[in-house]
């Protein structure tokens, strides 16, 4: 298979081994523009590792990851971010010592060099943009609060906001609704539905209801390999999937 130029993201034959253990083994999949891809799979299937490999957090042993024609495997994390890939971690990862405003400000896509950061001015466009994003992620009233004092769900939102402010073309979300209350979950689903417009998204999620709501296509991973791929209905009907995953 060759990379077709109209794919946003091409992953081919991706492999990583940790001291001989192949967490991801010869994995290939393709993401189209404006697609919402959901990755599911049992624990230890290598879901998070795949995201780590794409965003450069883990170095691949072998294979190819191309984003808009750029070879992501040769790029540093920050270069990958600048290329347009955003990543949210499984546990909410925000700067607890800083305020919500400052958290968003750090993610604002300007002044990312050392001297740029030194000379960065908090001018009106910056403030406006931060307000805008803050209201999208329901934190408009909490801008001056230290992130440490936010609830778990609010931290998740803040992290999503930090990604949105960068306006990435590909957004990768690792279990965005995990650990949320029912009300928060509902709000988050709305939020996600809104933000997955106009961009490609890769989501790792366990909540099947949620998956059904948002997925364009679903990829099922098992032991570091693609077990099945297609629409939700397709994978749900796949006997292999039923055996290893849904059947449990």
């Amino acid at each position, binding site marked *: 298979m060759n990379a077709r130029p109209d794919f946003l993201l091409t992953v081919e034959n991706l492999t990583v081994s940790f001291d001989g253990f192949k967490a991801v083994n010869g994995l290939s999949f393709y993401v189209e523009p404006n697609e919402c891809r959901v990755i599911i799979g049992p624990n230890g299937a290598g879901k998070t590792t795949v995201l780590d490999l794409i*965003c450069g*957090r883990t170095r691949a042993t072998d294979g190819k990851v191309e984003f808009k024609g750029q070879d992501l495997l040769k790029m*540093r*994390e*920050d*270069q990958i*971010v*600048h290329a347009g890939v*955003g*990543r949210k*971690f499984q546990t909410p*990862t*925000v*700067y*607890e*010592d*800083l305020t919500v*405003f*400052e*958290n968003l*400000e*750090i*993610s604002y*896509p300007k*002044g*990312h*060099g*050392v001297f740029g*950061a*030194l*000379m*960065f001015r*908090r001018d009106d466009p910056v*403030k406006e943009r931060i307000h805008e994003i803050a209201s999208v992620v329901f934190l408009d009233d909490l*801008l*001056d609060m*230290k992130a440490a004092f936010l609830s778990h769900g609010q931290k998740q939102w803040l*992290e999503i906001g*930090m990604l949105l402010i*960068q306006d990435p073309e590909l957004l990768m979300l690792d279990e965005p609704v995990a650990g949320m209350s029912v009300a928060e979950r509902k709000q988050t689903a709305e939020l996600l539905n809104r933000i997955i417009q106009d961009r490609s998204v890769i989501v790792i999620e366990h909540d099947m209801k949620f998956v059904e709501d948002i997925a364009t296509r679903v990829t099922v991973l098992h032991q570091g390999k693609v077990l099945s791929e297609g629409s939700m209905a397709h994978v749900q009907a796949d006997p292999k999937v039923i055996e290893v995953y849904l059947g449990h």
Partner: protein
Amino acid sequence: MFAKDNKLFSTGDIVGFVVLAVLIFIVLPAGLDTFRLNLFGKYLTYAFVAIGLVLCWGAGGILSLGQGVFFGLGGYCMAMFLKLEASTPEATKIQSTPGIPDFMDWNQITALPMWWEPFNSLTFSLIAVVLVPVIFAFIIGVAMFRRRVGGVYFAIITQAIAAIMTILIIGQQGYTGGVNGITDLRTLLGWDIRTDEAKVILYFVNAVLLFVCLFVAQFIRKSKLGRILIAMRDQEDRVRFSGYDVANFKIFVFCAGAAFAAIGGAMFTLQVGFMSPSFVGIVPSIEMVIFCAVGGRLSILGAVYGALLVNLAKTTFSEMFPELWLLGLGALFIAVVLAFPNGLAGLYKDYVEPRLMALFKKKADDGGGRNFDSIKAPAE
């Protein structure tokens, strides 16, 4: 309220800077004789290092146990210039090769080494004071931070570098003065730096430079870069995935710390009159970390007080109770780490400032509504 501009100085900062300025520029010079003032001048040179450590360690989470190397490099660059000036052919006519520093002559070196030549120029030397340590820090920083060496490993490697540096300086005594260091420095462009008058002037030069460094440090801390440092310390990965090249920021702040330390070293040489490898090694480097820890690793003003207080205590108590002094110093380390991780600045913030604020607030309310920044909770 959230739209407030990120001011360089909050009200509390202004109060702190003014109090320190009054102390350093007015109270100390007025209250001390030249001898004691010179001592305080020496203590303040350590404050430069401590300020750098606040940026590197307190804000950036990079603990360097090799700041003595930069302090020393800065000091040696200054000392080399002064030594060349002191080694005129007339002053050194009893040597087999007049006109070169005495320690070279003792080591059968018959001509000034090439790399000493540029230190005949004050301009070059002053640039070298800052640039040599910064380049050295840059090389270490690139090598380490690009490879993502951090935390404990960085601390131990910098410590090894301090050890290597000391052995090298001591071993290459023909070029460095060896274990004695570069001594007997007399004049700066013909101006005798040993007189009382010179000591007072140097004290003020030192104080001004200290405030310049404090302002630069404050600017860095209050810039977005300062917040990125804190973000990096707590969630390095997140910063990376916000699109920052973390290594560059670490290299920058490490170089800045090195530059501060180097300026301190140069001022040390000028005020004390010599430079020796005993300020480069492991022990002084760790002591410098202690100044910073006692003052409060998050506060640049605290760092200055920390350097002053620990050194003052060292001089006073080691005079009175030489036996107890080390016990006291050891206990101080432990107490600071266990009980007051934010040092003096933390104590101030937790106990003194709230009371002051309450006092001010009362007055302000009476006078009609001036507002102060809310008090920040301690970091740990």
